[in-house]
C-alpha cells in the first residue's frame, strides 16, 4: 500500500484501509451509515460522486428529482416517516442554493438530514469561479452543523460526524460541501461511526429533583393539560407518553408536528392546539392549572399572544433542547432530557387519576365546535365540496392507516384537523417554516422509506404548482404516491386573511389554473377530477385501491374559510368559531 501524501503522513495508516478516491469514499460512507436512498441532481462539481453512484447503484439508490428543492423535501419526507437520516445531494452554485429552502425547513422542524454539495476545486475557492457560491456561509444560520472538505482524507471522519449530529439529540440538517479536487484525490479509506464529540452533548441528563417537582405539580393538579409536540415522536417515546397520560388521566393536545404520536381516537386525545386548532384545548389552555408541555417549543402559532397565554397555570416543560426552556413561556419546572427517558422515569412518580369532571369540559366545548364548525366541514349541506369532506372520505377509505403528507395553507390545516391517524409518524407537513411546495416531493420520500404504507399527499392548487415538476420523479420512479389537490383556484389561506383583515381586497391570490388532470396525464399518471359530491367517494376509493401513483383533483368551494381561528396576536381563549 502506498503512503498517503497529504496531512495523513503523520498519522499511522490504519489497518483494513483501502486506497480509493474521495468520491468513492463518500459513497462508501453513505452505505456504511445505512443509507439506501438519496435524492439529488447532478452537475459539474459533484460529477465524480455521481460516477461512483453509478458504480454502486445496486447498494445505493439515487433518485433524480426535478429540482434540488424537491430533493431536500423528499429527503425530509423520508426522514419524517422513518426516523432515519434523509440524504440530499447537489452540485455547487445554483444546485447548492436550491437546497436552502429544504434545509431551513428541516432546521425549524428538527428533521435529520444530511446534504452533500459539490464545490469548485479548492484552488478556485474565492475566485468567483463558474458555479462557485459560498454555500457554507449561506447555510450557516439554517444548519445544525456544516463543514467544507478540501482534502479527501477528511471525508470519512466528517461524514461520520455529519450523520451523528443530524440524528442525535434534537435532530437537524447538516451540510457538507466537498471541493471537486477532494473528490478526485485518493485516501486510505476506513470508516468508523462517530460516537461522540467533545463540545456537543446531545442529550441532557434527567435531573431527578426536577422530575420529582414535575410529578408533584402533576399529581396536585386539578385541571391539568398536556400539550405535546414532535419531541415525543423524535424521541420514539409514544408508548411511554401514552402510559403517562393514561395513568394520570391527563387530557392531551398536540401541536401540528406532534400529531399521530397517539391515535386520533385515543380518549385522552383532545385535539390540536394553535391558530387553527380545536376549540377545547385552546380555550382550556387559559383555564388549566398545570400546563405540561412535552417536546414542544411554544411556537407563536401555538401560543397566540404570550402576554395572555396560560398565565393562570404553572408550567412544566419536558424538553431536550435547553435553549427552548424559558424561550417563549416561563416555566415553573423544566425537565431536560430525552422524552423517552424522562417519561419512563416520570411514570412511577405519578398518582393514578381520572380528572373526569375536567374532561367533561373538553367534551362540552367539542360539542360547540362540532355544531359551529366541524358539522359543516364534514357533513356539508351546501352545494360546493368542502376540503373537510375529502379528508373524511380518505379516513373512511384508509381506515386511518395512511400517512398524510400535506403542503401549506388551508388544505394543510384541514388535513391536520380532520385526518385520522392510527400510527405514529403519519402526519408529515411543513410546520415551522410553512414551505409551500413541500407536500409533493416529501410524499415521494415518505413512500420510498415506507413502501408498505399508503402515502397520500394533500396539496392546494398554489403549493402544488411550486414543485409540480416532481410528477416527473413519480413517473420515473413509479413511487406509488397518491396525490390529492384540493383546488379552490385561490391561494386560500392568504385569501382568507385578506377577507378577514384586509377588507376583502384579494391582491394576487386568485389563481388561473391549468388543467391539472391533463398535466398529470402528461406524466402518464392515472388522474381524475371530481367536481360533485356524488363522485367523491368512488374517486377516493379508486385512488386508494390503485397500486400505482394516482392523481386526484377535487374542485372545492372557492371561498371557504378555515375555522376555528386565533387571529395573529390574539389570546388563545379568544379563538373564533366563525
Amino acid at each position, binding site marked *: 500500500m502506498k503512503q498517503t501524501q497529504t496531512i495523513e503522513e503523520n498519522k499511522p495508516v490504519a489497518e483494513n484501509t483501502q486506497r480509493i478516491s474521495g468520491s468513492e469514499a463518500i459513497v462508501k460512507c453513505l452505505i456504511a451509515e445505512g443509507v439506501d436512498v438519496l435524492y439529488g441532481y447532478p452537475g459539474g462539481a459533484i460529477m465524480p460522486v455521481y460516477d461512483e453512484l453509478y458504480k454502486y447503484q445496486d447498494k445505493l439508490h439515487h433518485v433524480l428529482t426535478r429540482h434540488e428543492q424537491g430533493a431536500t423535501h423528499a429527503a425530509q419526507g423520508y426522514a419524517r416517516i422513518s426516523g432515519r437520516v434523509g440524504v440530499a445531494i447537489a452540485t455547487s452554485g445554483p444546485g447548492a442554493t436550491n437546497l436552502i429552502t429544504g434545509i431551513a425547513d428541516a432546521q425549524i422542524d428538527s428533521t435529520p438530514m444530511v446534504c452533500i454539495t459539490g464545490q469548485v476545486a479548492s484552488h478556485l475557492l474565492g475566485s468567483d469561479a463558474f458555479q462557485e457560491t459560498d454555500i457554507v456561509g449561506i447555510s450557516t444560520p439554517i444548519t445544525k452543523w456544516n463543514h467544507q472538505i478540501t482534502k479527501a482524507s477528511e471525508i470519512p471522519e466528517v461524514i461520520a460526524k455529519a450523520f451523528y*449530529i443530524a440524528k442525535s439529540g434534537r435532530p437537524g440538517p447538516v451540510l457538507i460541501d466537498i471541493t471537486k479536487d477532494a473528490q478526485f484525490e485518493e485516501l486510505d479509506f476506513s470508516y468508523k461511526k462517530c460516537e461522540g464529540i*467533545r*463540545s*456537543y452533548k446531545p442529550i441532557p441528563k434527567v435531573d431527578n429533583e426536577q422530575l420529582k417537582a414535575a410529578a408533584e405539580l402533576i399529581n396536585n393538579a386539578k385541571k391539568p393539560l398536556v400539550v405535546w409536540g414532535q419531541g415525543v415522536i423524535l424521541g420514539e417515546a409514544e408508548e411511554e407518553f401514552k402510559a403517562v397520560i393514561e395513568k394520570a388521566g391527563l387530557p392531551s393536545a398536540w401541536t401540528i408536528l406532534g400529531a399521530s404520536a397517539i391515535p386520533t381516537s385515543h380518549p385522552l386525545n383532545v385535539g390540536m392546539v394553535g391558530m387553527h386548532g380545536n376549540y377545547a384545548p385552546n380555550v382550556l389552555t387559559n383555564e388549566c392549572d398545570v400546563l405540561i408541555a412535552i417536546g414542544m417549543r411554544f411556537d407563536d402559532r401555538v401560543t397566540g399572544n404570550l402576554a395572555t397565554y396560560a398565565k393562570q397555570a404553572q408550567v412544566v416543560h419536558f424538553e431536550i433542547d435547553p435553549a427552548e426552556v*424559558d*424561550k417563549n413561556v416561563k416555566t415553573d419546572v423544566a425537565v431536560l432530557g430525552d422524552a423517552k427517558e424522562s417519561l419512563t422515569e416520570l411514570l412511577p412518580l405519578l398518582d393514578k387519576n381520572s380528572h373526569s369532571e375536567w374532561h367533561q369540559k373538553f367534551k362540552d366545548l367539542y360539542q360547540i365546535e362540532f355544531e359551529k364548525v366541524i358539522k359543516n366541514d364534514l357533513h356539508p349541506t351546501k352545494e360546493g365540496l368542502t376540503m373537510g369532506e375529502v379528508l373524511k372520505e380518505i379516513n373512511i377509505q384508509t381506515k386511518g392507516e395512511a400517512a398524510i403528507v400535506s403542503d401549506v395553507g388551508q388544505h394543510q390545516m384541514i388535513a391536520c384537523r380532520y385526518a385520522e391517524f392510527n400510527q405514529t409518524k403519519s402526519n408529515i407537513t411543513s410546520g415551522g417554516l410553512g414551505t409551500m411546495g413541500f407536500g409533493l416531493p416529501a410524499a415521494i420520500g415518505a413512500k420510498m422509506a415506507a413502501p408498505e404504507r399508503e402515502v397520500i399527499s394533500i396539496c392546494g392548487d398554489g403549493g402544488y404548482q411550486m414543485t409540480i415538476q416532481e410528477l416527473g420523479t413519480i413517473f420515473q420512479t413509479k413511487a406509488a404516491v397518491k396525490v390529492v389537490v384540493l383546488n379552490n383556484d385561490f391561494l386560500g389561506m392568504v385569501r382568507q386573511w385578506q377577507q378577514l383583515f384586509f377588507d376583502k381586497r384579494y391582491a394576487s391570490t386568485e389563481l388561473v389554473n391549468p388543467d391539472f388532470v391533463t398535466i398529470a396525464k402528461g406524466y402518464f399518471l392515472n388522474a381524475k377530477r371530481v367536481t360533485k359530491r356524488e363522485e367523491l367517494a368512488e374517486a377516493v376509493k379508486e385512488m386508494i385501491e390503485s397500486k400505482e401513483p394516482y392523481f386526484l383533483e377535487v374542485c372545492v368551494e372557492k371561498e371557504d374559510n378555515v375555522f376555528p381561528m386565533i387571529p395573529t396576536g390574539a389570546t388563545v381563549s379568544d379563538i373564533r368559531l366563525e
Partner: protein
Amino acid sequence: MSKELKIYTVSVYTENNIGLLNRISAIFQRRHINIESINSSVSEIAGVSKFTIVVKVTEEQIKKIIGQIEKQVEVIKAYYHSDEETIYQESCLFKIKSDLLFEERQIQNIIKESNARIVTVNKEFFVLEKSGRRQEIELLYRELSVFGIMQFTRSGRIAVTKDEMKISTMLEAFQH
C-alpha cells in the same frame, strides 16, 4: 427579570473551527443586536479558543443568547458576566507626529499621567500604547486629539472573571 439594558461580557469557549465566528455572530445579527466588540484568542486550555463578546442587552436577552450559542455543536461552554463580575481591559494605539513630542511639552505630561507607553519613535511619528478601561482611553483620546492624531485604533475588550470558570473540570468530565 430586569428589562434594563446592561453591558454584558460573553465568554465563549470553542473548538477552533473555520466558520464558527460566522455562526456565533449570526446569532446576534438575527436578533438585531449590535456587537460592541468581539475578540478571538486562545484560552487557558490548549486547543480551546475563546471569544470575548461585549453586548448591551437585557439579562433576559443574554440568557437566551447564551442558550443559542451553547447549542452550536462546536461551542464547549458560554458564560455571561456583568462588568462588576469581571476584570476587563481594552488596548489602543495612537500614531502621532514626532515633532509634537518636542514642540508640545504638554504631550509628555499627558503620556506620563495616563500611564501610556511609547512603543516606537522615529523621525516622522511616534506610537503610543495604552491599556485600560474604556473611559481612560477615551480621556486620553480627547486630550491628544487637540494636537492632532495621525492614526488611532482601539481593541475589543478582553476580560477575565473574578470567579472561577469551571471549564477545565468540565472538559475533563467530557473525556470520560
